[in-house]
């Protein structure tokens, strides 16, 4: 059946899956950001740890989503739990890495000046270091966001309901309608998310300079 027919008949399903996808995305990104920034700060605090962690993260990052997903199942089962490892690796790690390197890149003299004025380490972190590292951190969030959309699409294979489900169904039944719909919608979603965050990145850079 044609695309329009499909939308007409299955519009509810598509809407539900789209909403589910966005919801999962939002939750994952929020979680990944909190964990990623938190861990990133912890890692950055001990400078030498950063120089070990960052290359290790880069290595893990390069691992294909499918492999992460496949490896995750025997450990965590199927369904959303099974998606946790790929979501962590592809979602948290870019943010962690960028937070760590962003903080490492803050000019030591600026920090020295701030401490000299009498700011506590926590204040220095919140008022000086994080704002300085913000563009890099947002860049990491952007990488993470795009990857998350992709991982969530793939999780359809382990039973997570998202727009990926349409693609999986489309392939399984050789039905172009859900296939194209699912692919287009996820593609548009990813591109939109990317552009919004590029804007955020640019805004952060402008605020700094």
């Amino acid at each position, binding site marked *: 059946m044609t695309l329009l027919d499909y939308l007409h008949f299955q519009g509810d399903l598509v809407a539900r899956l789209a909403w589910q996808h966005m919801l999962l995305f939002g939750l994952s990104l929020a979680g990944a950001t909190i964990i990623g920034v938190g861990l990133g700060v912890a890692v950055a605090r001990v400078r030498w740890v950063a120089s070990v962690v960052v290359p290790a993260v880069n290595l893990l990052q*390069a691992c294909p989503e499918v492999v992460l997903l*496949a490896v995750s199942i025997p450990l965590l089962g199927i369904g959303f739990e099974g998606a946790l490892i790929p979501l962590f690796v592809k979602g948290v790690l870019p943010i962690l890495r960028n937070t760590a390197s962003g903080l490492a890149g803050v000019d030591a003299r600026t920090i020295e000046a701030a401490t000299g004025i009498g700011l506590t380490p926590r204040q220095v972190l919140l008022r000086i270091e994080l704002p300085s590292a913000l563009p890099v951190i947002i860049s990491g969030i952007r990488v993470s966001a795009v990857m998350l959309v992709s991982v969530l*699409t793939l999780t359809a294979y382990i039973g997570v309901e998202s727009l990926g489900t349409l*693609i999986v169904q489309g*392939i399984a039944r050789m039905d172009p309608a859900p*296939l194209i719909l699912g*692919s287009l919608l*996820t593609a548009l979603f990813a*591109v939109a998310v*990317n552009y919004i965050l590029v804007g955020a990145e640019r805004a952060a850079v402008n605020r700094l300079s």
Partner: protein
Amino acid sequence: MNLFDYLTANWPRILDLTLHHIELSLYAVALALAIGVPLGILCYVVRPIAAIVLNAVSIIYTIPTLALFGLMLPLIGIGVVPAIVAVVLYSLLPIVQNTYTGLMVVAPEIREAAKGLGMSPGGRLWRVELPLALPIVSAGVRVAVVNAVGMMTLASLIGAGGLGDLIFRGISTLSWALVLAGSVPVLALAALADVGLKALERRLAAWQGIA
């Protein structure tokens, strides 16, 4: 059955799938190079189109890999061809971007000297700018190859074969051995490509008299 048993029983098939996987990945990267490097050079020579082209390949790169494969099916069909096309598209960004950047970062005094000596634009490109851009281009190739190896795992979904066959079968039958039998070669290939190409980069930088 456990992994060891599976391996001993099926290693010819695994080897076969691995070779097929490598073949597909290499085809894709070779094609991406054939298209991407000239595109990158074009962006460098015709500066105004750089933004458009880089944006375009960037957008393609953002599309979730499954969606990209999915879009190939109605457009091209199943099998090896759509798989390669999808991976080629995905590999364009690192190659085009790095070719462009590699050319852009050639030191201005080198460019000026080449011009002043009387080299033609083509001559400059071929004898000076491209050779000097090579390490950066090679870094892009490295990223593309590692990506391609990983992405080809999805190729099995559209009937192109490759190590994805083992992985997806493993997922649907919840067989740990199958999953590993498919994943480990993929990871090994990616790691080997990464290390090997890094060494090439270093060699190129040394030849350039930079490293």
